[in-house]
Structures are given as C-alpha cells and as structure tokens.
C-alpha cells in the first residue's frame, strides 16, 4: 500500500485530465478594450440600439472602477487591453441539424461527453452548447417550444424576444454592481436565455456546457433565466476547459428572476483548468451570480461544485423580496495545488417570513486556499426572517488553508439567524475504523469526503451528481491528512 506521503504526492501531481485544444478557425475582435471593440461586438451580433447603449453605459462605468482589494487573496494584475473580447467559430448560416455543425467541434463535445448526438438526446438533457462565444447547436427547442418555454442563446433571444430581454436584463445584476459585472455587460458575447411561461413546469433539466477554447480569449457569458408565475425550472451549468499556460479570465454574469410561486434551481459543476502543480496558468473564474425572488412564495436554489480554476471568486446570492420567499445555497469547493477559492453567498432578506439556508463545504488540499465568505442581511421590514448557515472545512495536508468570513447583519428584532462553522481534518480514527473493516486508506478517504459533501451532492440532479462525485473522487482519492 502507498504511504500517506506518496498518496499526497500523487494527488498534488495529478494533472488535468481534460487538457486538449481544438483548432478551429476563429473570427476574432481585435485585441484590446475600447468603445470600438464594444461597437464591433454589438455590430457582429446585430444588436438593437438599446443594447449597444446599455453596453456603452456599462463600459463607461467600468472605466471608473477600481479593482477590489477586500478579497482574501492577491488579485493578479489583469491587463484588459491584452484580451480579445470576441471569438466565434466561423458561422455557417442557420444550422438545422448536427450534421451541419463543424465535425471537429462535434468531436470535441464527444470527447467531453456532452450529449449532443441522437442517442444522447434520450438521456433527456437539452443542451445549449457554447463553444467559446457563440451557441452552435440547440436541441430540444421544438419540444420546449410547444410548452411556450424559450431556451436559446442570448443572441437569439435579443433578436426574437427583445422585449423580454429589455425588461429583465440587468435588473438583478446592474452594470454598476462590480467591476467584473460592468466588464461583462460591456463586452458579453453570448450566453443562454430561458423563459418559462406562467404555470409551466419545465419537463427536463436545461443544460449548458461552457468551454473556453481560443487562446487569450476571455469568456464573457451572460445568462438570464426568468421563471414566470407558478413555473418551475432546473438549470445545469458545467464546464471543462483545455489546458493552457496563460491565465484566462472568465467573468460571467447569471441573473435569475423568479416571480410569484415560481421556483428556479440552478446547479453548477465547475472544472476549469486549475493550473499546473506549480500554480502556473489556470482560469480566473470571477463570476457574478444573483437571483431575485420577486413574488411571494418564490424560491431560488443555487447548488455548486467547484473543483477547477486557479482562482474561483463568486458569491451566488438571492434577494428575497417577495413575502414567504425562500433562498438556498449548497456548495462544495475543492482546492488543491495552488488553487484559490473565495466563494460563498449573499442572502438579502427584504420580504416578510423569508427563509434562507446555506450549506457550504470546503475541502483544501496541497497548498489550496479555501474561503467561505457569506452575507446574511435582514432588512428592517423583513419580519420573521429565518436563516440557517452551516459551513464546514476539511483540511488535507499541513500547507493548505481554510477560512470563514461570515457577515451577519440584522436590523429586525423578529429575525432568527443561526450560523455555525467547523474546521477539521479527516479523523485518524475514522480512517482506522475503515481500515479495520478492510477498506483501504484511499477508498476510506473517498468514502469520507463523499459523505462529507453528501448534503450538497444530494441537491444536484442525477446526471450531475454522478459527474460531481467522479470529480471529487478523481481529485481526492487517497488523500490522507
């Protein structure tokens, strides 16, 4: 049997499994950021005027922003002028079937196991696959269309449903929210758009796979999901990225809007390229995700499994505006080698009788740094608000770090807020117990980590839960502290 040290070394030296890159002709914007770039993107995407103006407004705000300094890691300098803001596979007009899609692209998706092909449609996942910046294939649209559900690329939504886009875009994450949200609003290239009409329960999990491909191309996705009164939708987002030596910036924005009695469930499995074992390269995953429960009895639930990226920095939040609305956040974040995760959530209680629940599980190995940063705010009129927060950290190896920064703010004397956090390592007694029963150390650790993360993994839809478990197992099997 391997010694602990060997197992640890193994773990820290394991290289990224999905590292390959595809050569496809790219249609790029000139490198650099200025108003011309934004006009170029807007022109390329044949956007209406209101959107261009909105982009320019965001850009002007972006120019006034300073880079934040409050985060719990050193922010690498990002040269926004060295990024190419638009790259799209050369368009072949109006793709109707997969046969028309670039075969090399399809092969890439196959390699990633994305269910784009016929037999994979049977698995019941409608995929809006984003290759770099433009959606190239959308499945199940017709079936969803029958129910009145709109599930398309952002660009298409702008063209065919401009009123909906105009009504909701930027209402949850305004362009002035933060520097990366402003940047995204200015230069976002594409993304997904979902609208569920009143009273409709979306019959399948909607899913998008993101994949960064072009070198030096920042990926600026924008997702907007609107669940109208009494509707339900479950949305999946997952990513893998090819290996790359240069750092790449990923600054996406996700906005969720749940009206009265609606429910949105948003799940993420994130496995961007984390950099090599020296901490070189890797993706900067700086994402702004926020949902709003606009109507009474609305519910938004975030679930995330974060295993990739050199730096993961995001706080999916919920604004609980409607009375009796509910917000949930379930997270597993795993960092190894030199990875950094500064993640958590924001629950803003505005309505009466609102409830929120936060379960965060951090796992740090190698030299990974894992921070939970969460805000629970109860406004003066949010009577009888209720929050439960639990954040646990698991440390594997003596050079990693686990940090907890909760912010608990209450202005209402009827609020009941609970927070608890623990930090520990995998108990030697637990390992010993497993060994005793014939389970080797490697398997025991996988077992314990899986059990530790179970509460979160259970929230994932079936297809994702399997992938997430596999990811955790790949990253952590046999890591004994």
């Amino acid at each position, binding site marked *: 049997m391997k010694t602990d040290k060997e197992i640890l070394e193994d773990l820290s030296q394991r290289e990224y499994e999905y590292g390959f890159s595809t050569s496809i002709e790219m249609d790029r914007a000139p490198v650099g950021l200025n108003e011309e770039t934004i006009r170029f993107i807007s022109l390329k995407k044949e956007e209406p005027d209101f959107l261009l103006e909105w982009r320019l407004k965001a850009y002007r705000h972006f120019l006034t922003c300073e880079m934040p300094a*409050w985060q719990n890691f050193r922010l690498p300098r990002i040269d926004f002028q060295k990024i190419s803001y638009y790259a799209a596979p050369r368009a072949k007009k109006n793709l109707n079937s997969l046969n028309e899609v670039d075969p090399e692209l399809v092969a890439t998706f196959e390699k990633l196991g994305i269910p784009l092909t016929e037999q994979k449609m049977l698995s019941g996942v409608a995929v809006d696959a984003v290759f770099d910046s433009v959606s190239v294939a959308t499945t199940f649209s017709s079936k969803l269309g029958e129910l009145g559900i709109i599930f398309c690329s952002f660009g298409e939504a702008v063209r065919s449903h401009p009123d909906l886009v105009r009504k909701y875009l930027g209402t949850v994450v305004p362009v002035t929210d933060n520097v990366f949200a402003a940047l995204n609003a200015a230069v976002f290239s594409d993304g997904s758009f979902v609208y569920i009409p009143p009273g409709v329960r979306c019959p399948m999990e909607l899913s998008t796979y993101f994949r960064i491909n072009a070198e030096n191309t920042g990926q600026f996705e924008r997702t907007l999901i609107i669940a109208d009164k009494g509707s339900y939708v479950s949305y999946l987002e997952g990513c893998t990225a090819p290996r790359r030596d240069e750092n790449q910036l990923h600054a996406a924005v996700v906005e969720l809007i749940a009206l009265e009695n609606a429910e949105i469930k948003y799940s993420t499995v994130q496995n961007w390229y984390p950099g090599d074992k020296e901490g070189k390269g890797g993706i900067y995953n700086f994402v702004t995700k926020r949902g709003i429960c606009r109507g009474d009895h609305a519910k938004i639930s975030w679930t995330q499994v974060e295993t990739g990226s050199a730096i993961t920095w995001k706080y999916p939040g919920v604004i609980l505006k409607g009375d009796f609305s509910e917000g949930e956040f379930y997270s597993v974040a795993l960092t190894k080698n030199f990875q950094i995760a500064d993640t958590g959530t924001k629950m803003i209680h505005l309505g009466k009788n609102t409830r929120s629940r936060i379960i965060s599980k951090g796992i740090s190995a190698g030299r990974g740094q894992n921070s939970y940063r969460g805000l629970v705010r109860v406004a*003066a009129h949010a009577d009888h608000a209720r929050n439960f927060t639990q954040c646990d*950290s698991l*440390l*594997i*190896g*003596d*050079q*990693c*770090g*686990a*940090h*907890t*920064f*909760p*912010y*608990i*703010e*209450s*202005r*209402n*004397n*009827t*609020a*009941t*807020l*609970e*927070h*608890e*956090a*623990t*930090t*520990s*390592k995998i108990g030697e007694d637990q390992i010993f117990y497993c060994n005793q029963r014939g389970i080797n150390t490697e398997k025991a650790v996988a077992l314990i980590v899986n059990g530790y993360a179970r509460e979160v993994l259970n929230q994932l839809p079936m297809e994702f839960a399997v992938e997430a478990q596999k990811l955790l197992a790949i990253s952590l099997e046999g890591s004994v*502290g």
Partner: protein
Amino acid sequence: MMTSDTGALYRKLVEDQDQLFHPVAQDAQWQKLRQSAWGDFMRLGFPTTRHEEWKYTNILPFLQPPYQIAGKNGVHLNATSIEALDIPGLDAWRIVLVNGVLHPELSILPEAGSLRVLPLEAACGLPQFREHFGRYIETGNNHFAALNTAMASSGLFLEVARNTTPSKPVHLLHLTTGSSPLLIQYRNLLVLQPRSSLNLVEQFVPLYLSGDVLVNSATEMVLLEGASADHFRIQNGNQHEATVNHTQVFQDASTLYNNHTYCLNGKFIRNNTHVAIGAPGGESHLYGLYLTAGDQLVDNHTFVDHRKAGSRSNEWYKGVLKDRSSGVFSGKIFVRPGAQKTNAFQQNNNILIGENATINSKPELEIFADDVKCSHGSTTGQLDEEAAFYLRTRGIGEQTARSMLVHAFAYDLTEKIRLEPVKRYINKLIDEKI
C-alpha cells in the same frame, strides 16, 4: 495619504504636532517609536466605513466635537467621591487614573514586593519597559493604535514579580472628567513575570463629566512563562463618552489569560481585544457581554492569534440590544502555519429587543494548519416568548420575567467570574441596565 473626510481633528493634530511631541523623559527609544507611529497615523488618518475593520462603525460623528488634547496636569478630586466607586466587598489595591494620569493621592498603592506600580513615564528607564513597550501593538494598519502610540505619554506601568501573586486583586479605576470636549489618550503596560498571577479589575467610569470626550487608550499586557491573569473590564460610561480601546495581550508558554468584558453604558464603545498566543501551552478565554439601549453603539473586535502549536482558546460574546442601539461583533481566530493541535472555539449570541436595534456579527476563522479543531457559531434571535409566558403563568410580572430571562442569558458569562464581589457587582449593574 489622507483618505477620509474625518479632517478637522486630523488637521488639528497635524498642526499641533510640534507641541504634542515634547520628548518624554528624554528617552530616545520611545521617541523613535512615537515618531514612526506618527508616520503611520499621518498615512492612515482616521478610519472610515470603507475600511474592513470599521465597516459597521462610522466613527465620523465622534470626531466632530472641537476636542482639546487632554494635558497631564492633575485634576483635583476628593477622595470620598472615589471611595464611592469601590466595588462593595472587594478588598483590593486601588489605582486611580484620572483622564489617563495616575493619581497616587487617590490610590491605595501596594507596598513594595509583589506589585510594582509606576506612572508610565517614570518607568521608561526600566529594562522591563525597554524590553516590552511597543513591542506587541502594531501600528502599521491600526489607525487609533498608531495615534495612541504616537501621542500618549501618560498611563500606567504595572509589574507582578516572578513567582508571586499580589495579596489582593488590583482595582484599576479609569476616570474621565471634564466639562469641555477632550481627547484623552493613555497607554498601559502590564508585565506579568514568569509564574506570577494577577486579578485585575479595570473599571471605566465618568466622574463629573459633562463635556464630550473621546478616549483612545491602549494596553499592552505580557504574560511570561507560566503566568496567569484574570482580567475584568467594566465599561460604564455616560452619554458624553466615546471610547476606543485597544488591548493587546501576548502570552508566552503555559500561560492562562481570562478576559471578562462588560460593556454597559457609554455613547460609543469600540474594543479591540487582541490575544497572541506565542508559545505552546497558552490558553485564553474571552468572555464578553454587551447590553445596549438608547442610541448606543458598541463594537467589539477580537482577534485570537494562535502562533505556535498546542494552544487553546475559547471565546464567548453575548449581546442584548434595546431601543435603537447597535452592536457589532467581529471575532477572528487565526491559526498560523505550523500551529498544529490548536483547539479554538468562538461563539456569539445576540438578542434583539428593540424594534430598531441592529446587530452585525462577523465571526471569522482563518486557518493555515490542518491538525486543528476550530469552530464558531453565531445566533441572532429574540427573548423566548414561551419562556416569558411560562414565567407569567406562575404569577411573575412581565418586567420581572424579562429581566429574569436576560439574567439567564447573561448567566453563561457571569458564572465564569471567580471573584464573588465582582460577580455581585456586575449582576447589580446588569439589573440597573435592564
């Protein structure tokens, strides 16, 4: 760089700096420390809510009064008014500081032996002073501590001799007095020599105070190997008093430090309680209770720094907030790389009674070692209506029932007090406050 609009007082301090920098007892080492701290303060200025450490506390209103810098001249108070401030039943050495200046004529000072008490400036020639003074408080990123280090020249030096325990507890009375706006700054250095122990009851009280005061005090407390201390702080100011207090404790091997902080009255109280456990076997317990009413703002920041392997800490802060008052609790447990076998616990419980009361709680963990047990918890809630109802069904009036519940809430902390007279006294103060 001046980053805030807290300018008037800042400008006044800068303008008067020549006058404020009379060398203290011609001591070059101290003077150098002051100058470097002054540089830090010039750079930092006063904090604004944009600073993470001051996110919830806007200091601006407390900087507005046209403060004069409190001088070192004695203030005449008669001994009987001081005796009234003694804690009933507590037989203790009484040390009286008025506006930060030691007044031996009002104090009951110990004979030579276990305890040595000196005005700070008189101690600056001592080797103990040279070894410890200014060594523990860092001024590079701490606005008020920088200002204090730069300007405070009065205060107290207290030393407990090796292998001894003073025959009585020390009752340290910090009085503030005056009728015009004053900025009061003082600095204490307490050194507990190896295997000594000390019971210290610090009390902060206004006396004939009718002008606004801003107190900026700093205390360094060193526990050398095997020393132990029970440290009580009873903060009971009035509506004129704004206080910023920085207490820095350094613990050597096998030391025990217990801190009991009671924040009762005072328009504004900010406590920075920093404990650094710098050697194996150190143990600290921090207990705090804040009862606020009216427009009070009480802000407790604690920082427990586990620097070496094998240390323990336990922290428990509780608050009851009435009316429009606000409370802030920010606690950090910091475990440095290599500080294995650390066992740290932190808890913060709050009860909001006032409809417009606010609480901001920020319990933090920063852990850089894997073989540790660290946890924290924070709750915010109400007085248990069912418990109140139960008491009332037994014929207990509503007021009494509520008072009983608050006492029960505070009991977890008051029961830790080992000095009976202090416990009785604090319970009485809690009663008065509710």
